[in-house]
């Protein structure tokens, strides 16, 4: 009995649409709402990337690998980073463009943006790296972006992959400033994926830069994990099927859009706009909108809103548009409401709500209130466990475990590492990156 699907209509606009489309799935967490009562529910706009027909015809990429080579990277870190980058370059094809940048107090362009036809030369450039000096992270990313701009093309996946193990200490160095840079880069179609290595980097800065530019953020506790993370990242980058995804939700009069969970979105009046830079093949990304509904009588059907998405289809090289709408039905029966809950939407909601609480716990710990943070994390674990069993979700169960793990690692000695784990987890939840290395 999936009423939601009956109420959801996805419409393809445009006659010239050929090839496959992104799958748009708009659903309410509660397709049935309690009658005669003002309440809050969630709308999920799910987007799933299609699969390329011919793997060889995947979207060409334009990648800048930006490596920290400050003195703190010396030794195993540098070696593993080089190995990971060399291995990643191996996965590139002849249509791809790659550049390699290394930074310490200054920035060196080891390999200027070039087609990945001579991978050996590129890898030789990486092998020459030696670690020394301080950390001009902003300049490193800027130079990486400059290399990408040389061949900037909306039909490529344009991405900076930043690896750092330290604090930026030359140039702009606050999370806010790097966030501004990320926001500016996404407007140019460039995302920055950030990989933090070890316990010395600024996870807020790295996460903010990735978040604002819609890249990925990952935490590598040991240099040995770098290969895996680079692999994930390249897997993502190489499987992009849609870019510049703009989700516009126009809520019907009387429906109040409250907030978008996790993601950054503009809410003004009845309109909500959220952007997702990239959709990966067979992966789902979603926007979760919290809405407040007015009280309605039994059996009333209420339109919640219309959804419109536009995106650049990387297979057809066209800008495609999809629309959909969603409605809810009111009932006096609370059993009916409970019965009709959309399990998948609820799992997403619970995950994001829990991630939000995890953020608050982190903030409490930052303020030095270890006990309050611990209590919040334990209750968050319980919240996830309860929902995991009622919604039969192993994912939520896993997240419950992470929160419990966080709760017991708040002491000074473990906090530095744990904070990075939490930040990476929150980032993955907000951006639906299920490649956690935890």
């Amino acid at each position, binding site marked *: 009995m999936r009423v939601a699907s009956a109420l959801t209509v996805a419409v393809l606009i445009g006659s010239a649409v050929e090839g496959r489309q992104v799958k748009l799935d708009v659903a309410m967490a509660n397709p049935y709402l309690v009658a005669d009562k003002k309440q809050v529910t969630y709308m999920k706009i799910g987007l799933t990337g299609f699969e390329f027909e011919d793997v060889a015809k995947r979207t060409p990429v334009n990648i800048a690998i930006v490596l920290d080579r400050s003195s703190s990277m010396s030794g195993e870190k540098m070696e593993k980073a080089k190995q990971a980058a060399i291995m990643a370059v191996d996965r590139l094809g002849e249509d791809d463009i790659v550049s390699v940048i290394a930074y310490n107090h200054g920035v060196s362009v080891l390999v200027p943006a070039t087609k990945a036809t001579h991978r050996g030369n590129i890898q030789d450039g990486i092998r020459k790296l030696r670690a020394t000096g301080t950390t001009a992270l*902003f*300049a490193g990313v800027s*130079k990486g972006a*400059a290399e990408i701009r040389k061949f900037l093309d909306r039909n490529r996946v344009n991405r900076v992959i930043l690896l750092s193990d330290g604090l930026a200490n030359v*140039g702009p160095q606050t999370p806010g400033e790097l966030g501004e840079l990320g926001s*500016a880069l996404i407007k140019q179609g460039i995302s920055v994926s950030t990989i933090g290595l070890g316990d010395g980097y600024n996870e807020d800065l790295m996460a903010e830069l990735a978040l604002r530019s819609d890249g990925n953020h990952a935490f590598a506790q040991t240099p040995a994990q770098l290969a895996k993370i680079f692999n994930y990242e390249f897997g993502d980058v190489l499987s992009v099927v849609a870019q510049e995804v703009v989700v516009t939700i126009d809520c019907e009069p009387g429906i109040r859009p409250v907030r978008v969970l996790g993601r950054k979105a*503009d809410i003004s009046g009845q309109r909500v*706009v959220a952007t997702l830079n990239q959709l990966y093949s067979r992966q789902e990304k979603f926007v979760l909108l919290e809405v407040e509904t007015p009280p309605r009588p039994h059996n009333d059907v209420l339109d919640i809103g219309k959804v419109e998405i536009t995106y650049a289809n990387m297979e057809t090289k066209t800008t495609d548009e999809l629309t959909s709408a969603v409605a809810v039905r009111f009932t006096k029966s609370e059993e009916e409401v409970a019965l009709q809950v959309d399990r998948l939407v609820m799992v997403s909601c619970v995950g994001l709500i829990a991630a939000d609480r995890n953020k608050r716990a982190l903030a409490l710990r930052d303020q030095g209130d270890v006990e309050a943070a611990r209590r919040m994390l334990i209750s968050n674990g319980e919240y996830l466990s309860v929902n995991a069993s009622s919604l039969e979700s192993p994912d939520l169960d896993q997240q419950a475990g992470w929160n419990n793990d966080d709760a017991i690692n708040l002491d000074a000695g473990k906090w530095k590492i744990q904070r990075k784990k939490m930040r990476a987890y929150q980032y993955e939840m907000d951006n639906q990156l299920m490649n956690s290395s935890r």
Partner: protein
Amino acid sequence: MLIVLMPIGLLALLGVRLAQDEQRRVDDQLRALMRARLHDVGRSCMAVVHSTELELLKRLAVPSLDAWDLRELTRAQRRLRQVFVLDPQGLLLYPGAVGEQTIEERAFIERTRSVWEGGEAFFEPEFEAGPTPAPVAGQTGSSFESVGRVWGRGLRRGASSAKPLSAATKTPHATQADYGWHTWFWGTGMHYLFWSRNHKLGRVIGAEVDRMDMLSEIIGVLPASGESTARLPTGLTRLVNARGKTAYQWGDYEPPENSEPTVRASLDAPLEMWSLQYFSAPGDLAGAGVRVRYTWALALGAVSLVLVLAAVYFYRENSRELREAGERVSFVNRVSHELKTPLTNIRMYAEMLDGNLPEEDETSRGYLDIVIQESRRLSRLITNVLAFARKQKEEVAVRTRSGDVDDSVTSVIETHRPSLTARGIEVSLKLRAGGMVLVDIDALEQILGNLVSNVEKYASAGGSLAIRTGRDGSMTWIEVTDRGPGIPAGRAAALFEPFQRLENSLTEGASGTGIGLSIARDLARAHGGDLVHKDSDGGATFRFTLHTPEVHDEDSSG
């Protein structure tokens, strides 16, 4: 030694001065060069700003003021962080009503509060004649005008209070600019507003510029560290922000902390608070200086070496001459001894012959006189040489006997008279030292003889020789004055050194051993007196004194 060291010292001083000047000149040239290159770099930074301007002008030339279109502009367009719309008086129309702001718009208003409230007017409020201003069409249809006042409090300004625009602002119209920049400080740094006048809509449409994008793009056009930069030498170049913090740097050199840049250049508005700073590595700017210094040290060293070599050469030459002179003297000494015996015999027999010659044989007597005179002259020369030889062996001694000084003087003059007469020298005598005193007549005659023969040799052109004598207690003085060329000032001291002869055109050709005055003075000093040269008008005066105690009666009888 001083003769060698002084020029070297002077040269060194001169060299250092010249090297410093050269260093300064090279430094100045390098600085000028680096400044020029920094300005080049500055221009490429400003090129980013200008392309930003152009792109913004294009983006902000919107056909209408629909709030969602403006939002879309903010969302999608690069370089724009937030679009805003002002009415001609500077009232903020968009972002507008509190309830309809997005989070980003609220943040923008928070950031720019000081601009709208306490800030200064940053554009000329007057519009040229144009259509009626269009209201910003909000999505809900409400005008932003009313709510704009909430944020626009205090924004209305008369034309008189508007300030002229900054230097960066281009002014296509003579009276008012159509676009420009405004900077303000918020949070941790400078923020930048760009505005342009939309005459069609009668509005000022502006945007907060994406400052990190601009910086990032500037960094993108600046050289990277590894690049071989023809733009600047091997030092470090820094882009320094309004707060004096390094935003970007390139070059392989790491200057010590807190070191001052070699040159710096400010950027233009709106980045006038930013600067480019160049720190020269020890290898480039200073390096040129080191090269300069090396060159100078090398030149100086060469000159010093030449001087030292010359000194060594002259010293060796001098000592060789001295040695040779010594050998000459020793040889002459030995020869003189050998000559003395036959000469004594010649003189003895010539004088004997003189006594025996008949009175009438005038011719023979004349010849004999010459033989006697010349042999006496030769005898005197030999005595001189022997005296010098004695002096070399520190054996100068006088043996006094009773005698009359004036008689001895007369005798010496008479002896010389033929040769003096032959040279046309008139002799005048004023002798007032008569009486018997204890004196070494031989020494007296040798001193005086030397002085007189000097007059013969060097001052014959003067045609005059005056000799005055006198007594002052137990001292007898004798002055010999000529009217010859005299002794050049500064050479008097050297006169009495052995082998010194005043080499000038007048004495050239004259012969002499160069030991006469030396011996004369030694003898005078041995005799308890001295020989000095006195300045006189047009000629030379030598005065010597001798210690001549008066002879007592018992001695005089003996």
